[in-house]
């Protein structure tokens, strides 16, 4: 096993990886940009080194500098987290050349799966169903028109090099296809340096369900119970759960085995996730494979009792996976809510700033993976995730109730957050019924109404009392002052 690992990331995921390092007796090294000098990941690390200026391209995306730090501090491996360099095959190659272990898949598999058209081909080779669409790239508009009319509108026009909700366009009709054809190609060329596009049928209200896999160097590939991540806003997941409300043992095994076949054909190693869309008849179709640890990995950890980061480190160190498929047992139900520095009350605008007060939920069945602390700053330069709240309970209904309880305990002052919206999601009738699909959040936002309870009155009362008592010092010791200053009230 490694003695020292550099975590090439920041925020909650860097903290997450550093925690496993500490538990395994491995020295954990953080890197930080100028604005992150006092970041929680720096505070949780055994060592930390500055890596450049705030913008990611001058720090967390600087492969050379990161490798240089790793070499100088003697780190034998680099964990990339998610985002930044996590799916950058060049970086994986560079690590290899420098004799540093990249904790992730081999760059070859990363490259194959990183582009949509080759990935779809691998899925077909592995007998994994793909969404009906063009066999590969669509060269010109006439071909596009003919493919689209064959599979039927609406269709998705996608950049092969896109991913993560970027580089795709919904096309309702032939007229729209004509209008969008050139602009989509141009955008793909501009954004991903590759104008290649292809067509897929657009499924009606699909679910997003994905399978986590992990593979060692010796050909063992294991799948985990599915995660349902259908609650998305702007193609970004915001709530994830495991198991899916619709999956039974048969579907779970069919999807799991499909994911294992795909990973095997691709020569995959380490942790990865095969994403599927699932239609209303519970047919599933390969969407893409994420070649890294995912934001939502904790729900899988909660229902299986396994530590995915630990397994990543073991696999990367060349050890055999210490578990077999039969050891993966699903227990209970886990739900994750992503808490963002976004103003849920006004269009989810980013809300960077300083966290003036912080109280996190805790207690039975609640896990918080946070990247902040009281007094910390949410910088404008990166993904505005604050933390993830993950709960576990024996049944889905109880898990949702537990999440509501946990969110009700969360207090963050100084910035605005997505917590209020997450709260209302947990009580939404479709969410509670498990009737999920990828456009449900948009529908809920459209229909959302203010709850009619007395809370606004309580808020007014609290605000006006704080105004009324402005300038009065907070109680330091209720022991002495309760009787003196609490019941009384000066003018």
């Amino acid at each position: 096993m490694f003695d020292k690992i550099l975590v090439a990331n920041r925020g909650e995921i860097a903290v997450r990886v550093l925690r496993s390092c500490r538990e395994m007796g491995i020295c954990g090294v953080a890197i930080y940009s100028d604005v992150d000098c006092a970041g929680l990941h720096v505070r949780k690390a055994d060592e930390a080194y500055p890596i450049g200026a705030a913008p990611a391209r001058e720090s967390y995306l600087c492969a050379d500098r990161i490798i240089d730090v790793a070499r100088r501090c003697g780190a034998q491996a680099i964990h990339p987290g998610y985002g930044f360099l996590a799916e950058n095959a060049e970086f994986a190659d560079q690590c290899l050349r420098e004799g540093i272990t990249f904790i992730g898949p081999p760059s070859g598999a990363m490259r194959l799966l990183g582009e949509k058209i080759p990935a779809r081909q691998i899925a077909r080779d592995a007998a994994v169903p793909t969404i009906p669409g063009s066999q590969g790239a669509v060269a010109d508009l006439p071909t596009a028109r003919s493919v689209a009319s064959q599979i039927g509108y609406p269709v998705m026009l996608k950049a092969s090099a896109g991913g993560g909700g970027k580089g795709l366009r919904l096309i309702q009709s032939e007229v729209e296809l004509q209008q969008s054809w050139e602009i989509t190609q141009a955008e793909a060329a501009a954004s991903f340096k590759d104008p290649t596009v292809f067509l897929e049928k657009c499924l009606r209200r699909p679910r997003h369900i994905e399978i986590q896999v992990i593979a060692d160097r010796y050909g063992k590939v294991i799948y985990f119970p599915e995660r349902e991540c259908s609650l998305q806003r702007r193609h970004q997941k915001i709530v994830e759960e495991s198991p899916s409300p619709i999956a039974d043992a048969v579907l779970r095994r069919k999807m799991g085995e499909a994911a294992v076949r795909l990973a095997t054909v691709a020569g995959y190693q380490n942790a990865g996730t095969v994403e599927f869309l699932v239609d209303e008849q519970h047919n599933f179709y390969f969407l893409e494979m994420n070649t890294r640890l995912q934001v939502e990995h904790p729900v899988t950890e909660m229902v299986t009792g396994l530590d995915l980061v630990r397994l990543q480190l073991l696999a990367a160190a060349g050890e055999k996976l210490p578990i077999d498929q039969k050891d993966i047992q699903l227990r209970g139900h886990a739900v994750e809510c992503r808490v963002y520095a976004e103003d849920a009350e006004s269009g989810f605008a980013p809300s960077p700033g300083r966290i003036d007060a912080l109280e996190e939920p805790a207690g039975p069945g609640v896990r918080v993976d946070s990247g902040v602390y009281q007094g910390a700053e949410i910088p404008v330069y990166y993904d505005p995730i604050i933390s993830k709240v993950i709960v576990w309970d024996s049944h889905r209904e109880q898990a949702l109730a537990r999440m509501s309880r946990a969110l009700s305990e969360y207090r963050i002052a100084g910035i605005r957050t997505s917590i209020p919206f997450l709260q209302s999601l947990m009580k939404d009738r479709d969410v509670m019924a498990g009737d999920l699909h990828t456009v449900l959040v948009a529908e809920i936002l459209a229909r959302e109404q203010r709850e009619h309870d007395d809370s606004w009155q309580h808020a007014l009362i609290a605000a006006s009392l704080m105004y009324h008592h402005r300038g009065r010092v907070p109680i330091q010791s209720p022991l002495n002052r309760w009787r003196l200053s609490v019941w009384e009230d000066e003018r």
Partner: protein
Amino acid sequence: MKLEARLLNGESHSIQLQSKREGVEILLDDRRFSVRFLKLNGSRCLVYSDGKVIDALVHHEGPQYTVLLNGRAYYIELTDRRLTRPLPDDSKGTHQPVKAQMPGRVVRLLKSQGEPVERNAAVLVIEAMKMQNEIRSPRQGFVSQIAVREGESVAAGQLLFEIRVEPQP
């Protein structure tokens, strides 16, 4: 003490507070509350109202109060009747500037100069923190000035546009 409170949805409420020996009497519109109040550190407070406990975190910048309560956020503007400075007079036309809340890049202009806008209508789109954000008009009126161009980088606090509010009849 008499306060006027305005909620985000535009609703306005009147609040009267009066200190008593046993706590504070509050008249919220026409509902009466008799509460006890405990100010904790870190902008936390506890209000005991007829057995109910209100555990709130109250943050304010000037008259803008944010109250966190059971995982929800409430935004309230408080006006003290005794101290009221004359509010910007709506009976004359005024120009309301809208500034960037954070650094970013203008990706799209949705309105042009002189165009009439509703309250909350999107005027332009700024990309920041990897996300696109619509910047909306705070008032009904006309776009009297657009101070940025598409593609331009803006700093926090930089003027984006101005809305001219028409005198009310």
